[in-house]
């Protein structure tokens, strides 16, 4: 198979137990031939035992024992399939228990979000939550799948009404690219193959859309940012004086000869070489992992960020961010946490809760300042030392951070700098 130039597309699926999310994923895996015979056999047996007619596609996404027993998804699971055009990673996220935590996790790395709507019910609260999170996490592409069209007799009017409902409430959101699709995941209409039941729909089926979405611009190629992960000092023959800064380019493009600044120290230098085990590169871009050597012998270590002289990140110690709270333990005012932003780790405190968001109505709650599980809010954060930040809207890597509880080491919250 000629696969050399195929890209990787990550998408997340959000939905509740009944809107056919698992069936849709099962259908994509099955119709793209990602299901093996032994998996099919196992699922056929289980389908029979449960008294289902035919093969229950949803069973392909079963995971842990508790999930099988309860018939629900508890935690994000990852699925894979490949077509001659692309490799796909699905972050299959549950829509109910700990929904914010799971949806936000799946959304954080996604190029695209599939939002499922049951054609019989139209836009419900959960649809609004999903759309809000897709917008908050800046997923570049959103595909709204109006599912179960077979149960509304493939009626174009039903579909059009749902599209306008969605467009109406989502006008308050910031989503760059929204598409709509009528489908029946159960029967495979408009999933991989074009539906013959909905000739009124002119668009492409889901898989074709996923295969052709323009994702090359999803990564910021303008602002060159290189968070240093570690320093390579081989001290062996041929590399006695070698000092390479290892990291993954967060955004932008670097070339030898570029004038750079090391943040936060402010030392200037030039890129000498960009190295990999296969040799030096003429240029390197996000999201490549490389090591960079500089012309000057200056102090650079983990947590520093190399940027271009004429395009720098902001070194900030106090900033506003949207945060999603993941823990049963509520946030305490002025409590100290560890903040991890790229490779930089500092102590931080939530200085102020500006407002909370009701993610069903998108309205601001200004009189309730307590952050509990699943809450999304705007806060002011103060750190002991500067972090080198961009706005999340411009840069998903240098604009994001997590907060860690020093007592339990749990990840408490995810943050997006505004």
């Amino acid at each position, binding site marked *: *198979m000629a*696969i*050399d130039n*195929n*890209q990787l597309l990550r998408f997340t699926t959000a939905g509740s137990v009944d809107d056919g999310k698992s069936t849709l994923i099962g259908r994509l895996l099955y119709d793209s031939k990602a299901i*093996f*015979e*032994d998996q099919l056999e*196992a699922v056929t047996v289980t389908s029979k035992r449960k008294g289902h007619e035919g093969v229950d596609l949803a069973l392909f996404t*079963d*995971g*842990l*024992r508790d999930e099988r027993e309860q018939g629900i998804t508890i*935690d*994000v*699971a*990852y*699925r*894979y399939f490949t077509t001659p055009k692309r*490799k796909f990673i699905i972050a299959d996220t549950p829509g109910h228990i700990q929904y914010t*935590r*799971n949806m*936000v*996790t799946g959304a*954080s*790395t996604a190029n695209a979000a599939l939002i499922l709507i049951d054609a019989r019910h139209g836009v419900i609260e959960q649809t609004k939550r999903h759309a809000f999170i897709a917008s908050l996490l800046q997923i570049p592409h959103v595909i709204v799948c109006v599912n179960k069209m077979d149960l509304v007799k493939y009626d174009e009017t039903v579909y059009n009404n749902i599209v306008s409902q969605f467009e109406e409430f989502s006008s308050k959101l910031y989503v760059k690219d929204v598409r709509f699709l009528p489908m029946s995941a159960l029967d495979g209409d408009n999933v991989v193959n074009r539906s013959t039941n909905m000739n009124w729909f002119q668009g492409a089926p889901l898989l074709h859309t996923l295969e052709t979405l323009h994702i*090359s611009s999803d990564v910021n190629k303008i602002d060159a940012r290189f968070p240093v*992960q*570690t320093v*390579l*000092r*081989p001290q*062996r023959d*041929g*590399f006695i004086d070698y000092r390479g800064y*290892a990291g*993954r380019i967060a955004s932008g*493009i670097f070339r030898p000869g570029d004038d750079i600044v090391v943040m936060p120290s402010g030392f200037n230098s030039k890129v000498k070489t960009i*190295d*990999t*085990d296969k040799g030096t590169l003429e*240029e390197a871009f996000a*999201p*490549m*992992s490389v090591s960079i050597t500089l012309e000057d012998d200056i102090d650079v270590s*983990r947590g520093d960020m190399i940027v271009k002289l004429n395009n720098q990140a902001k070194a900030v110690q106090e900033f506003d961010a949207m945060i999603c709270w*993941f823990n049963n333990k509520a946030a305490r005012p002025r409590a100290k946490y*560890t903040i*991890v*932003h*790229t*490779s930089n780790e500092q102590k931080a405190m939530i200085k102020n809760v500006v407002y909370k968001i009701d993610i069903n109505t998108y309205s601001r709650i200004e009189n309730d300042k307590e952050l509990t599980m699943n809450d999304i809010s705007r806060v002011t954060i103060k750190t002991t030392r500067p972090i080198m930040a961009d706005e999340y809207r411009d840069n998903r*890597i240098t604009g*994001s951070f*997590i907060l*860690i509880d020093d007592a339990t*080491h*749990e*990840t408490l919250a*995810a943050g997006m700098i505004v």
Partner: protein
Amino acid sequence: MSKYYLNYLDELESEAIYILREVWAQFENPVILFSGGKDSILVTHLAQKAFYPSKIPFPLMHVDTGHNFPETIQFRDDLVKELGVELLVGSVQEAIDDGRVAEEKGKNATRNTLQITTLLDAIEKNKVDCAIGGGRRDEEKARAKERFFSHRDDFGQWDPKNQRPELWNILNGKHFEGEHFRAFPISNWTEMDVWNYILRENIAIPSLYLAHQRDVVWRSNSWIPVSEFLKLDAGEKVENKKIRFRTLGDITITGGLESDADTLEKIVAEVSAMKQTERGNRTDDKRSESAMEDRKRQGYF
């Protein structure tokens, strides 16, 4: 004009290198769990890239069931010598001799589950705070739930329902003394990706993966290799077949398939047309629907 996007193999490679470097930066005493199978060979290869021009800054750790393919051990020893890294070995045989574990009985007895004790012992003895594994999420349904950085408690146990969320590419490896982490840099690779990459990079793999003549016995729908550990049942007969192995584990439980694929190119072609999953030939996974989940909870790879 150049294109500013990576193909999927380059992106997977870049992600794995990033994770390996995070392991090195966040932990005191990491090791690579090395079985001699293609996935751990791939992880080792990626570690070479991640730290080039330095050598791999941590040891390889092998949990030795005593039921090995001789080829695997030879391959392991050659690789360790070539890389100039330390090799740590945890021995299941020693654990049996010490009476810490008891050998399973019966025809389908394996040392697969016994590895858990040895693995956890070796982790504790060597004060390992992060064991890097070649587990992939496409392998098995419990593995589909794994994080890149996966927490293990004081007892080495995994709690799949209470995992730390992993957002963007930020990895939280914070732990208390006695706890450790498992890191899975090739989580997002599928079997096909692994083979395509091995072919592209021309990575050396044990000859067992290539088709060869071997004495085998037909059992549990696959060709089990004849070895000193294999007890023949009545009615079972030894045959000589041209086979290859799709995965490598303990010699007593790893079944081969009949094949003529004796080059990497032919393997890639063969794997892309496979109708069974990779672990379909592993009797360790056939024991029950949640065999892997149960073992993983206890501390398995």
